């Protein structure tokens, strides 16, 4: 049974790993992905420097959608444990957005499941990012074909 949380506040990575592995002696590998708010140089212009990111979601649907994804990961890789924490609300560059942990007996399953979980979270869970820029403008981030391709490879 995965641990899933959608929350406005930051998560403590060490605490989350301890929570997943405490008292267990069957886990041989733990995959971890942390998504972080970054200043996107791709925008080029100084006035379009990202100053904050706001994550909106569909509260009534979010947990169910994430559960679908973690259920699929547990089924495919027979995980021994799994954690997904996704933050919502306003975040500044450098802050954590999302945490994915996948525990397995062996490294390949843990690493693959971690990649699968973040790829599917990006394309199959109801979250939307809005970037704020230095000049006060704000823009909803557009979905990228590369994310769809990454999700489709699983």
């Amino acid at each position, binding site marked *: 049974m995965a641990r899933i949380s959608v929350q406005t506040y930051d998560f403590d990575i060490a605490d989350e790993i301890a929570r997943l592995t405490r008292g267990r002696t069957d886990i041989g590998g733990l995959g971890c992905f942390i998504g972080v708010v970054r200043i996107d140089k791709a925008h080029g212009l100084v006035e379009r420097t990202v100053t904050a990111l706001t994550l909106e979601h*569909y509260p009534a649907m979010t947990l169910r959608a994430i559960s679908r994804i973690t259920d699929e990961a547990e089924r495919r890789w027979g995980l021994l444990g799994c954690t997904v924490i996704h933050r919502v609300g306003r975040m500044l560059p450098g802050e954590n957005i999302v945490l994915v942990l996948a525990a397995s007996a062996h490294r390949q399953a843990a690493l693959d499941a971690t990649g699968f979980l973040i790829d599917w979270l990006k394309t199959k869970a109801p979250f939307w990012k809005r970037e704020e820029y230095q000049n006060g403008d704000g823009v909803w*981030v557009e979905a990228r074909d590369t994310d769809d391709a990454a999700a489709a490879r699983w």
Partner: protein
Amino acid sequence: MPLSVLYFAWLRERVGVSEEELSPPDSVTTVADLVLYLSNLDQRHADAFKNQATVRCAVNQEFAEITTVLRPGDEVAFFPPVTGG
């Protein structure tokens, strides 16, 4: 047919509300019918649904298609392609 219609991200901004209770005529039976109905409600809805290629939907908190059949009391949500993670 009574429906709860929800909007997220830029669809919410364009329509101007996050949720509304509507009763479209009985001729509205699918998501596609509802989109057409909404597009003709007023200018704000028309703007929101102008480019339908960038609109996704969910019915009763499950991702749905334009062909999905609606039932009285359904919760229908419209939003752009998701960008979380």
